């Protein structure tokens, strides 16, 4: 069983984790120190950041809530649990799961995203994998081949290859969706009157909400259907 390594982190320390293979879990919780389990190496850098390195196996980092996190992994699942600050994650192949972060910039070559809450800007890229966001501020989402579902966002840019896209706008925000072959469904709060620019090169377009000047919804597909609905 891997032993714990406890590091005293200065307030606001950035947690940097690199892992060649295996899962990475970073948990932001009510504590002042940083506890690392399963890593090959863990140090406090000169700039006060915490550097955690792992070659294989699972690595777990428990840190003060609100910590900024940077994770680089080749293969394996990355989980950001609890409450964390700004997070940047890059994974070659593996999924990313997030409870709550302030801002997120994450990418995976092949793997899915499951984001519960990102308070601010949420930028997600996957080559092949599903994107699921429950709640976010402004979102910038791209999937080569996988469905994109953003339940409540203030605004979004979405680029999708072959998966369906579902976006729920929290209010009169700006939405720009470009999709190749998937269908696109946009939902807006009842009573919202957005400006719409909907174009399907070889698909069906349907707008079930009254149009006006509240926010802007731009959707373009190559062969998928487009639908805008009230909820």
């Amino acid at each position, binding site marked *: 069983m891997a032993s714990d390594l406890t590091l005293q982190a200065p307030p606001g320390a950035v947690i940097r984790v690199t892992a060649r293979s295996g899962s990475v879990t970073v948990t932001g919780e009510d504590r002042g120190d940083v506890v690392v389990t399963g890593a090959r190496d863990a140090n406090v850098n000169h700039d006060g950041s915490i550097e955690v390195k792992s070659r294989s196996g699972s690595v777990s980092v428990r840190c003060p809530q609100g910590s900024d996190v940077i994770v680089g992994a080749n293969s394996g699942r990355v989980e950001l649990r609890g409450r964390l600050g700004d997070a940047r994650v890059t994974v070659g192949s593996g999924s990313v799961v997030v409870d709550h972060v302030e801002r997120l910039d994450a990418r995976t070559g092949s793997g899915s995203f499951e984001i519960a809450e990102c308070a601010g800007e949420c930028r997600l890229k996957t080559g092949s994998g599903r994107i699921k966001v429950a709640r976010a501020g402004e979102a910038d989402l791209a999937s080569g*081949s996988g469905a994109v579902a953003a339940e409540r966002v203030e605004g979004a840019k979405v680029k999708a290859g072959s998966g369906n896209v579902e976006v729920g706008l929290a209010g009169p925000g700006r939405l720009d969706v470009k999709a*190749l072959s998937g269908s696109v469904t946009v939902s807006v709060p009842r009573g919202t009157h957005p400006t719409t620019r909907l174009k399907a090169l070889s698909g069906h377009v349907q707008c079930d909400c009254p149009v006006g000047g509240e926010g802007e919804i731009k959707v373009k597909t190559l062969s998928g259907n487009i639908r805008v609905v009230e909820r």
Partner: protein
Amino acid sequence: MSEPPEGAVVFTDIVGFTEFTAQHGDGEALALLNRQEKVVRATLPDDARVVKDLGDGLMLWFPEAVSALGSCLALAERFEEEAATDVPLWVRVGMHWGCPARRGADLVGHDVNLAARIVDVAGPGEVLLSEPVRELVDGRVQGLRLDELGPVVMKGIPDAVPLFRAALD
């Protein structure tokens, strides 16, 4: 032809090309590749060259980092404009600065392999670059914003590599 040993190795890749070809056939795909080549050649400075055609992407060589970045950003922007008015497809770009070995007109070696890995990390419409490129372009391009992605662990590359996303404000 004589060119300096150091330079920028750039890979481009059209995102969604396989799906596009499956849906629209080889004729449309060929037309798309011709458009890509036309856009690339229009943005390349005289001292740069297309090293080779990779099907849905290209390998490029630039002897100067700032003009290389300028060309790559222009290329991404042109594709973004085309996506807005025509077929929604994007290009992604990976850049690295190094001293690759020559094999005729071809370039080979670790620096080439690393540049090829970088483009795999890029999302649609993104231009990503390595630390050696950042050192050469930072502060030399007006309006350039470089966002650090953090250490990126890539298949076949021994150490984690810091990568940056380039964009113009």
